[in-house]
């Protein structure tokens, strides 16, 4: 288990993290979402020992991550970093050695990963001569080359074209299959929804929601009802008790039902206006969950475990 536990950090007067905690099972992927400046990068940097937290710790298999344990973690920083003038193969070998592989093993692992990520022909080129997408692959190779037990990736998908996204996703899923816990942050919520077993949403230095996407849905589901009534007069639902109109556009209506409000009352009212072409509880997308979660400050009771 990879555990982030009660992380707190402030820079000067600004409280960046205020008790961030979540855990990731081996062989699962954790998507870390949050608006810009929410504290995702700081959280990951704490895990990598680049920022010292004011309180809390990160544990892997029950042991706090220290300098030694961190060498078993593959890391991709938010701001990509490679030696621009160093050759691709040598660079990847160098990072393998820094993670503790001996010269021969590092050379083999480097050749293997460079090939696997489709950079075989560019092995002897300096990194600065590569396209941005290929540099990103080198970055990934640097993170994977030491056969890490844990992967922590800050915005790994940013700047990739759809093909690049797919191949990176495939590489990460490969890692998950070998039992590696993967944590990555991303603004591409559709991707998080597609790839991740569980999701955490960070806002204002706190985890405002975490769990599987389904769990999050269940919490939100049962609240928003979509009713399409083409013939209804505008404002047809406004007078219904316990119902708030979220949006209404040419009969396509989103309704927020208060607790204890019977959906069948709504259906009856809808039928009263004429034809009903759509009536269903709406599955919120992760985007909506995210908007909802980061929109307003919540109390601690509402934060899911």
């Amino acid at each position, binding site marked *: 288990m990879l555990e982030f536990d009660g992380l707190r950090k402030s820079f000067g007067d600004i409280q960046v993290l205020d008790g961030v905690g979540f855990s990731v099972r081996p062989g699962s992927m954790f998507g870390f979402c949050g608006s810009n400046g929410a504290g995702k990068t700081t959280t990951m940097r704490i895990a*990598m020992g*680049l920022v010292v937290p004011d309180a809390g710790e990160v544990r892997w298999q029950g042991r706090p991550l220290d300098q030694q344990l*961190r060498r078993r973690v593959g890391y991709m920083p938010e701001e*990509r970093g490679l030696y621009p003038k160093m050759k691709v193969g040598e660079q990847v070998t160098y*990072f393998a050695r820094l993670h*503790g592989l001996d010269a021969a093993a590092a050379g083999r692992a480097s050749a293997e990963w460079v090939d696997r990520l489709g950079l075989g022909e560019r092995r002897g080129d300096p990194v600065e001569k590569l396209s941005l997408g290929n540099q990103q692959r080198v970055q990934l190779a640097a993170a994977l080359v030491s056969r890490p037990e844990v992967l922590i990736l800050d915005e790994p998908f940013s700047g990739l074209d759809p093909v690049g996204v797919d191949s990176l996703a495939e590489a990460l899923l490969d890692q998950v299959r070998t039992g590696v816990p993967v944590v990555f942050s991303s603004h591409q919520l559709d991707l998080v929804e597609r790839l991740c077993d569980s999701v955490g949403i960070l806002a204002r230095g706190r985890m405002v929601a975490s769990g599987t996407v389904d769990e999050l849905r269940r919490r939100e589901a049962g609240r928003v009802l979509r009713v399409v009534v083409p013939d209804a007069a505008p404002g047809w639902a406004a007078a219904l008790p316990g119902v708030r109109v979220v949006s209404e556009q040419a009969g396509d209506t989103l309704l927020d039902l208060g607790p204890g409000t019977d959906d069948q009352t709504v259906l009856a009212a809808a039928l009263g206006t004429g034809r009903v072409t759509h009536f269903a509880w709406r599955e919120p997308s992760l985007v909506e969950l995210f908007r909802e979660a980061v929109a307003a400050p919540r109390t601690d009771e509402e934060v899911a475990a």
Partner: protein
Amino acid sequence: MTAPTRTPEQTPGSTALVRLVAGREISTRLRDKNFIVGVVLTVVLLVGILGFQVALNSGGGEESRLAVVGDSAQLGPAVEAQGEAVGLDVAVVELADEAAARQALEDEDVDGALLAGARPELLLNDRDSTMEAVVGAAVSGVAISQQLAEAGVDLSAVPEVEVTSLQGDDDAAEQQQVLVAIIGVAMLYGLLILFGQFVAQGVVEEKASRVVELLLATMRPWQLLAGKIIGLGVLGLAQIVLIGAIAVGGALAFDLVAVPGDLIGTVVSVIAWFVLGYALYAAVFAMAGSLVSRQEDLGSVLTPMILLLVVGFFIGIQAAAEPSGTLAVVTSYVPGLSPLVMPVRQAAGEAAVWEVALAVVLMLIAIAAAVRVGGRIYAGALLRTSGKTKLRDAMRGGRG
């Protein structure tokens, strides 16, 4: 396939990490064309200086050529010896007869022709009092010793004069050592600036390319800094040792120095001061480099340090003229300036052993302080990749 589990023993220790970083620095520089060109140019320059010295020593333009007809075996060396005594380089050319000598004179192949015999005659194109005196003295000297030998006088009984310099050392040899020390200090000054900048540029490169974040995820700042400084230091040391070896080898081969032991001593002291100077400046340059995040900003933070080196260099030159002057004596203790001044004073024979020891101790204290403070600032500033970092913020941001 399962996630591999590794024992902690397999994770590299500090030594291994420092060695890895140092190895990367060395191999990167060795494959940098500009660096190699720089080294080659320095060596060529040095060989040029040596060649110039050789040319100067062998007289060059000041040489006079004298043709000798008959008996050149005795007169030749005598003329050369006399010439040396008055500072005239005379090269003796043996010619067959008077006609050949006159021809050579007319062609200006020689400056004078000496017709040896019972009544020696000196032929000159233009009158030349020095040449006349030299030849005259040589001829009479040879004649006198011949006559004495014929009279049965044992010339080996003539006592030789033993030379003792009251200054303890030969003045000319000392001057030579000071010259060597100045050349050495000039090299040391150049290499300190060069390698100091390498350190600073390396630090900024890692910061600017953000690779430092990846590096610091596997090692501590001091390990990264130590590897960088040691790696570049080994290169710098190799370069100054190479230069020293060429200088000593060349000087010995061409017989340029009076006392070879002194030369080697001076070269060794310059190299030792390079090591101390580099340790101090590398730590300071690394600290300065860590404060900025772009190569363009590097100049502004390095200028004060480079100015200090320039000042030290000029004091070093000045110390050659006045090795026991107040300025030279005081600055030869000041850490940072001492590597550029003390070698000159040592070469001039003006520094007692305790003075050198004191300067070294002060320097070591300064190095310890620079490594401590500089290392802390470096560690604190490394991950601040926006603009320039203030010293105070960097000190606070250290993460041990």
